[in-house]
């Protein structure tokens, strides 16, 4: 029964995915037939890739729609109805922390920073800085829904701090910092954690799921920006000290 209910609405999902992948497939076909003329086996790899991607997205979305979203919303509702519903804040912290340690894209970004700084910021340090940053962001997102804190009160000061720090960072650090904003938001963040915040916003009186349920991703995107810019400031200070010491000797 439960397995069947997981697949309810699957045909709608398939149609959505076809619509989503359609434009890209048309462009790729255009390039193949008018410009590239790739040999058969090579182009059939591309088509195979599209077919795998199609079913991959469809199953992913189905799992999110039928499993993660209802479960996340229900958990959000149940947790916010507890007399000690502040527990959502530490729970958010733990989930945020674990989410970032596990995110493959984060490891790619750490390698990038490693190249730019030629290894002077150790990878694990960066990873744990990012994890703590995102953990705070998710905890803050939970607190925001629980207590109805306006998003602007957090984001505007956050970005002002970021802009101030940009003055003391190299262009390279700024680029990596803003690139990494999207890195922290993996498949679990948008599906499961967002469903939880929407659930909390639905259950608590005076909260609106549209107003308070959303916004969590934007906080999670801000966290690594601030973390990396902070490291950039420290790095440029350190390299200045290092240069001065070198010029003395």
């Amino acid at each position, binding site marked *: 029964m439960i397995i069947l209910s997981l697949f309810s609405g699957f045909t709608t999902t398939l149609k959505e995915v076809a619509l989503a992948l359609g434009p*890209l497939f048309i462009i790729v076909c255009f390039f193949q037939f008018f410009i590239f003329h790739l040999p058969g086996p090579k182009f059939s790899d591309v088509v195979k890739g599209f077919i795998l991607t199609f079913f991959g997205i469809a199953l992913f979305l189905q799992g999110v729609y039928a499993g993660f979203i209802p479960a996340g919303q229900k958990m959000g509702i149940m947790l916010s109805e507890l007399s000690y519903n502040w527990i959502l804040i530490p729970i958010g912290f733990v989930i945020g922390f674990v989410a970032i340690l596990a995110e493959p894209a984060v490891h790619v970004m750490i390698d990038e920073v490693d190249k730019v700084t030629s290894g002077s910021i150790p990878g694990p340090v960066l990873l744990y800085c990012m994890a703590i940053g995102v953990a705070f962001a998710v905890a803050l997102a939970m607190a925001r829904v629980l207590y109805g804190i306006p998003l602007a009160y957090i984001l505007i000061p956050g970005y002002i701090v970021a802009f101030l720090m940009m003055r003391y960072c190299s262009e390279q650090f700024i680029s990596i910092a*803003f690139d990494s904003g999207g890195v922290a*938001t993996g498949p679990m963040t948008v599906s499961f954690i967002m469903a939880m915040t*929407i659930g909390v916003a639905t259950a608590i009186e005076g909260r609106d799921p549209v107003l308070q349920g959303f916004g969590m991703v934007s906080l999670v995107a801000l966290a690594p920006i601030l973390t990396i810019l902070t490291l950039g400031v420290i790095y440029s200070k350190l390299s200045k000290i290092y240069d001065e010491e070198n010029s003395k000797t």
Partner: protein
Amino acid sequence: MSSLKNTLIEVAYSILPITLVVVIIQIALRMSYEDFARFAGGAVLVCIGLILFFLGTKIGIVPIGKMIGEYLPQTGKLSIVILFGLLLGFSVTVAEPDVQVLAMQFSQASQGAVPKLILISAVGIGVAVYIALALLKLIKGWSIKYLIIASYVLVLLLALFTPDSYIPVALDSGGVTTGPMTVPFILALGVGVASTFGGKRDSFGFVGLASVGPILAVLLLGVLFG
């Protein structure tokens, strides 16, 4: 086959740890067996889906995306690069699964006030326009500092004129656009353009810029239709 193994590990890493935390919370809350099974079943589907998705993008979509990204600048025509940059930026963004999930949850929470398709299209257009801007930045050698500050000032201004209900989802849409479909394509296009048209040889900052576009686009959607 090693790419299959890597994909399996990658997916397991990004799903299992949180799943474990969630299961612990569910046990502590004494959630019903049915809710638990629903979540577990969903997790299995998500895992299989992500494995197929990553494999598919690796085999087919990333290589052809890179080819196109490298080919376009070779035409030497800026207008062609920008035109296809726009078209492809739109197409890869609307195919990004996270964008679908965000649009789905928003149309649900707003009780259909904003249809999924409209939100997804707005996000796609936002990314497309900003990819074009990022390409121009690369060719003209503009500083990323001023582009980013100007964009966020624009975000703030638009936020004043858009209905409140559009602001959180607009800001969220900035974080979901840069996924496994978009990033490899944008980076390839950036590197290709940099080597053909000159300019500094770094495509850094592309992804960051691409995530401001959708924020502006969704805010604008609110100004126009809210």
